[in-house]
């Protein structure tokens, strides 16, 4: 109970500080939706030039983008703030977090309350709903379940990537942009049909990192389309397992990283 009260106090203090610069906060709120709006807009603009990209029509491609937008926005909302870890490690602020009798990760997430990202989650799911309605999906119980599970699995998977890329800061204090190549890069990669990419690049990101299983494969399973690259139809239903595996790896990396942490002393 006492712990919960402490978290609530941290959250309330943050909420007050966030809304105290009101104009700036409102702009941030709208800008955050804008990021997803522009991702979707990019897909629409590209389809102005052609009716099929790598064998996929606009509604099909938008279904992939929708799953990823919804899942990524959810992950960014709940755990995206962990990417500020590199700043805290460099400035030594993390010491203050570690001496408190609370778990480090929730504290980090509360150090900057993500209210401004809320609208983006709503928009991400709206895109998904619109995309589902644009396609003629042959609904079965399994597909209904998949539609509910896919964005959540994507969110868990993306959260894992957020934690892993933030953990780089434990080993490499100035990890800079390397982390965002995996988080935002991963999102952008997974937002398009993976048949777009060349073989080496695709193998690395889609199958070694597993990014094919969070958007592309579930979308194929929903549409009932065979995979042009030859994976069987059940691959689309593997997304929760892939997400779980990613979460386990992320938890391990986080723990080892936190043990490894030595204050910068500044």
């Amino acid at each position, binding site marked *: 109970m006492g712990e919960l009260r402490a978290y609530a106090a941290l959250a309330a203090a943050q909420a007050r500080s966030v809304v105290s610069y009101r104009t*700036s906060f409102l*702009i941030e709120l709208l800008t955050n939706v804008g990021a997803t709006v522009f991702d979707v807009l990019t897909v629409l603009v590209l389809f102005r030039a*052609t009716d099929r990209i790598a064998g996929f029509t606009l509604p099909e491609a938008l279904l992939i983008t929708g799953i990823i937008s919804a899942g990524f926005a959810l992950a960014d909302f709940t755990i995206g703030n962990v990417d500020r870890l590199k700043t805290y490690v460099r400035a030594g602020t993390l010491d203050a977090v570690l001496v408190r009798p609370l778990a480090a990760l929730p504290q980090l997430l509360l150090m900057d309350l993500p209210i401004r990202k809320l609208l983006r989650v709503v928009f991400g799911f709206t895109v998904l709903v619109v995309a589902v309605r644009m396609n003629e999906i042959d609904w079965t119980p399994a597909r209904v379940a998949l539609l509910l599970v896919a964005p959540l699995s994507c969110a868990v998977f993306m959260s894992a990537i957020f934690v892993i890329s933030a953990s780089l800061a434990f080993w490499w204090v100035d990890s800079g942009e390397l982390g965002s190549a995996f988080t935002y890069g991963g999102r952008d990669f997974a937002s398009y049909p993976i048949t777009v990419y060349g073989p080496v690049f695709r193998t690395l990101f889609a199958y070694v990192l597993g990014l094919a299983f969070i958007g592309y494969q579930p979308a194929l399973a929903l549409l009932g389309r065979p995979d042009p690259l030859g994976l069987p139809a059940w691959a689309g239903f593997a997304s929760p397992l892939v997400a779980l595996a990613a979460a386990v790896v992320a938890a391990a990396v986080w723990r080892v990283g936190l043990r490894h942490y030595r204050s910068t002393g500044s």
Partner: protein
Amino acid sequence: MVFGYMRCYVLLAVAASAPGGQPAGYQPDQLVTYVWFGQGLLSVVMLWGWAELADRIRTGDVAADLLRPVAPVTAYLAADLGRAGHGMLTRFLPPVLIGALCFPMRLPTRWPTVPLFLVSVLLAVIVSFGCRYLVNATAYWLQDARGPIMLWVLGAGVLGGLYFPLRLLPEWLAVALWVGTPLPSILQTPLDVAAERDGPAMQAALIGLQAGWAVALLALAALVQKRAERKLVVQGG
């Protein structure tokens, strides 16, 4: 780098299925130039956030800038040009080399393209600087400029031509963006010049438009700075 590969593959896939194989008038090898030169220029024109001035305003350090004998706009511009020059040597070439090794890239075929491109990059840096200065200067009124800076990062990325070539938009919209906003002058123009998307006359016209924006933005930044100095109350001790 990762983003370069992704954009390149996506645009090439668009080109592969577009009627005539030339989306928005770009040959596939011109799209490769477009993507990888874009990756290289990204850190030169600094499309990402720059919050140095806003931070100094928030903390009150800006007071020290006002005591110097050089006007703040001039001083920050000089520093920014130096940074961009260094970026051109260290940050621009690696992505272009990688792009050229991994994809069929078109290099300029007409000799005037090279000097035109360099002038275009210089103007792009000045336009970008003017915009960033103005965005940061909102902190004089708002104290915290995080919102405006985010808005800038987002707007500059999309309307500057980072995510897709602006020529893919309907023509009236592309023209309106070019004439009505400085954003296409930051990335799209130098990239179109490098890819030789247009003939020499059009290249020169686009650069002329850039020059107009550069002058207008610097004048506006100087004006805003003067207004802000009259209003500024330095916070903190």
